């Protein structure tokens, strides 16, 4: 048993408990905070698997970006001073059964397979190799992701524009049509 094993076990524990609370905690804000635990534990597991670049990317994008956005969405859209963002437990019955069946299926497949020929990992630094892959065999996919990112951002800006401006835009478009 090495320190890495202890670290991985800790990540499993933290991630599992946090994911449980993310799914079941009645208060949506606490669920969001529990999500921090899951994401950080996945970052830790990336690190333990030798994917150091991915671990840092996971932290900087998920924790520094996406979670902030989620918290923003919670705080801006729910009436936080009345604390009324609660969830009733009945809604969880059917999804829980579905998820249990899914998990049982995954677990059965995983445990019934033969993993004896697993390779011994070598922990080379990954950032350089990933960079070469992104301009090598994955260049086209990378460009595709870039286009998706751009269109997604533009779409988000268009959707989130205030309604008044949207109406002005419609009127302007109509005028242009009349001309």
């Amino acid at each position, binding site marked *: *048993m*090495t*320190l*890495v094993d*202890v*670290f991985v076990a800790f990540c499993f524990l933290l991630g599992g408990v946090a994911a449980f609370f993310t799914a079941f905690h009645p208060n949506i*804000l*606490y669920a969001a*905070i529990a999500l*921090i635990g899951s994401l950080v534990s996945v970052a830790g597991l990336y*690190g*333990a*698997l*030798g*994917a*150091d*670049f991915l*671990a*840092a*990317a996971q*932290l*900087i994008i998920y*924790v*520094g*970006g996406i*979670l*902030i956005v989620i*918290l*923003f969405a919670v*705080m801006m859209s729910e009436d*936080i*001073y009345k604390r009324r963002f609660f969830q009733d437990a009945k809604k969880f019955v059917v999804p829980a059964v579905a998820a249990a069946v899914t998990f049982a299926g995954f677990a059965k497949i995983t445990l019934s397979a033969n993993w004896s020929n697993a390779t011994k*990992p070598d*922990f*080379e*630094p*990954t*950032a350089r190799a990933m960079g070469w892959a992104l301009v090598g065999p994955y260049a086209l996919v990378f460009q595709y992701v870039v286009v998706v990112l751009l269109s997604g951002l533009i779409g988000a800006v268009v959707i989130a524009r205030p309604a008044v401006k949207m109406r002005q835009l419609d009127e302007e478009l109509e005028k242009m049509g009349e001309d």
Partner: protein
Amino acid sequence: MSLAEFLSGIDHLLGVGIPMALFSILSAVIVLLLFAMPVGGFCTYLERKVAADFQERIGPNRVGPIGLLQFFADGIKMFLKEDSISKNADRWIYNFAPSLVMAGSFGAFAAVPFSAYIIGADLDIGVFYAMALGSLVSLGVLLGAWSSDNKWSLIGGMRGAAQIVSYEIPLGLSVLSIITVCGTMSMHQLVAQQAWPTHGGEGHFWNVFHNPFLFMNFFIYFTAALAECNRTPFDLPEAESELVSGFNTEFSGMRFGLYALSEFADVILFACIATTIFLGGWHVPFFNLQSLNVGLTVGELDLNPLVQSVLMIGVFLFKVSVLVFVVMWLRWTLPRLRVDQLMNLCWKYLIPIAFFNLIGAALWTWAFNGRGMLQLLGQVLGVY
């Protein structure tokens, strides 16, 4: 060096089992805190002295000679203050948020190269790691602000998070241009590349003088780092004239102390990163400290690395303290920006300029085969 390598390295080093390894990690954390706490505390003293100088006052002068021990008094006051929590505060998050901020700003110090021999962990992704841990700060600010159940706090926290997320982009772009030029993210190698140019073509001197684009990017980095640390002129999250004290209004005692300390730790951290990636770390002009040979030995032991380390740490900390002084200078010179001005500055000016510089730096590296201005000048003049 990857994380798994780092952890198993500790295992090999000790070879004495888990409890001992955990103990050593714990002691490293305690040493780090013992380093960061007095430095952060000393910064509060320095800030008050600088402020006093700018306003032609004397400043703290009662505790110790010229008030040098003032921060001890402040610290004791913080510890002894009543730890009040407002009735509707969300206790769990309220207790948890300051530690997130602490973890973000202190954890990143592990990757700072104080000398060629002293660095916590020479990670392969050093700069990226420091920035990633720094992103925990915005989360701590936002959660702390929300949990204290105060509208001023919440507005301050929202501003803080939005500001930090926005300014992370120009910050990341300016760091990215450095990575493009140097071809590495390891702090140690970044510093090693910035030596004074020699005949062998080793080193291109400080990155800030590598090419005009990096020179511009240094100022973009500095501006963005100011905003990341919530320092004036970007201290909107804690604007006293509008928001009482911003996101930390409801915090008292040591919890407030943690916020205040980690703000200074953040300033020092960004100054350390700026020094490392732009200002050449511990390198000085005209001379390579690592080739210094004083010829001192104690028995079998060569004292060279020790002497070099002391000089390197001196040079490094001098550069860092100059940057920190500039930060304090700006605080007492510039007025605060408005929110819309803040966002305009980031999205309409800093980000396009940083993009332009990134492309420019990449083209320069391609055109001159990675050589800096100083190296090219040396070639033209025939110095080497």
